């Protein structure tokens, strides 16, 4: 007889001792009534027991245990005694002053160019293309030109009207 298909997870959880009290109660009620689940549960327990037996559990000898402890303590002592690599590198004679001088030069150089960029905003605008303000001015100028043109058209129309009138007379 096969185990209930919807109970397979419960069988495994029960075998691993991972059922919560509610699940356990339900499982204990179901187990005596179902031969399939009971057989499968026993088979899983036997398998897990067999696997556990077949895997050796080595004992850490006193000597090895001491060796691990000694190595860990030695490495930690060594690390504590040694400053970090960059501290060690800087502290060496003749390195701190050149390092600081280089840092100062770098700061001054970047500072200079940085100021230069702040002081010349036009350059920025050029590089970014025409600003919104400029675009508005250009648009206004175009409108004025259009109005002038329309006014010219009106004058021409009036002139044509006068000429036409004269011709008709």
């Amino acid at each position, binding site marked *: 007889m096969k185990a209930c298909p919807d109970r397979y997870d419960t069988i495994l959880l029960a075998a*691993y001792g991972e059922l919560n009290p509610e699940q356990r109660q339900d499982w204990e009620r179901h187990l005596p009534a179902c031969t399939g689940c009971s057989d499968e549960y026993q088979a899983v*327990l*036997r398998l897990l027991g*067999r*696997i556990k037996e*077949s895997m050796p559990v080595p*004992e*850490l000898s006193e000597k*090895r245990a001491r060796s*691990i402890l000694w190595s860990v303590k030695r490495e930690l002592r060594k690390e504590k005694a040694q400053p970090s690599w960059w501290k060690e590198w800087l502290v060496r004679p003749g390195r701190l002053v050149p390092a600081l001088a280089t840092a100062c030069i770098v700061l001054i150089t970047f500072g200079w160019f940085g100021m230069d960029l702040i002081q010349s905003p036009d350059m920025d605008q050029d590089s970014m293309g025409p600003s919104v303000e400029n675009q508005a001015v250009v648009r206004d100028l175009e409108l004025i030109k259009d109005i002038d043109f329309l006014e010219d058209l009106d004058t021409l129309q009036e002139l044509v009207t006068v000429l036409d009138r004269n011709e008709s007379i």
Partner: protein
Amino acid sequence: MNPQSGPSIGLENDASPSRVKDEDLVFRARAHDPSAIEELVHRYQQKAYVVAFHLSDENEQDAEDLTQEAFLRAFQKLKTFRGDSSFYTWFYRILVNVCLDGRRRRKRWRQVFLPWQHDSTDKGLSPEERPDPEAHERSLKAISEKQLSRDIRKSLKSLPEKQRLAFQLKALHGMSIQEIARIMGTAEGTVKSHLFRATHFLREKFKDWEEA
């Protein structure tokens, strides 16, 4: 025969009243107190060694090196331990990571320097080792205890890494699913899924043995 009832090598704490709490030892170890470091190593090295032994394909020297490396890394990172979980869960997470890193390193090393050697640890059994189904069926009935043990170990090695890890920590080391989830840095449901798949695979594999 409940696997939980055997000699436990799990993570349960010894609750004797005279025992100094892990948290106190961690606090002192942070201040480089050698006696606290010594006590923490002494407290967990046997269990850590067994875990490392099983995760390093049962090599004693590797297990020793990995245990040592895990302790060292734990003490180096002790300042980052915030106490969200217990010290042993935090430490075992480091240990498992060290073991998995070590295994990957060895695998890479073998691939680079010994490419002609077939790696049977992650890809399952080699063709020579893999018995054909019929012969396997016939021989299972007559298989000796030793052979069965070897077969079980080979099958465990052929499991995918996460399934194998979840299964080993549960079935061999008696850890709870909650602890395994913390150690693996994953959800409990995922651990259950790995565990069920591994158990199902082994159950299917050794069904014949069970019937015999």
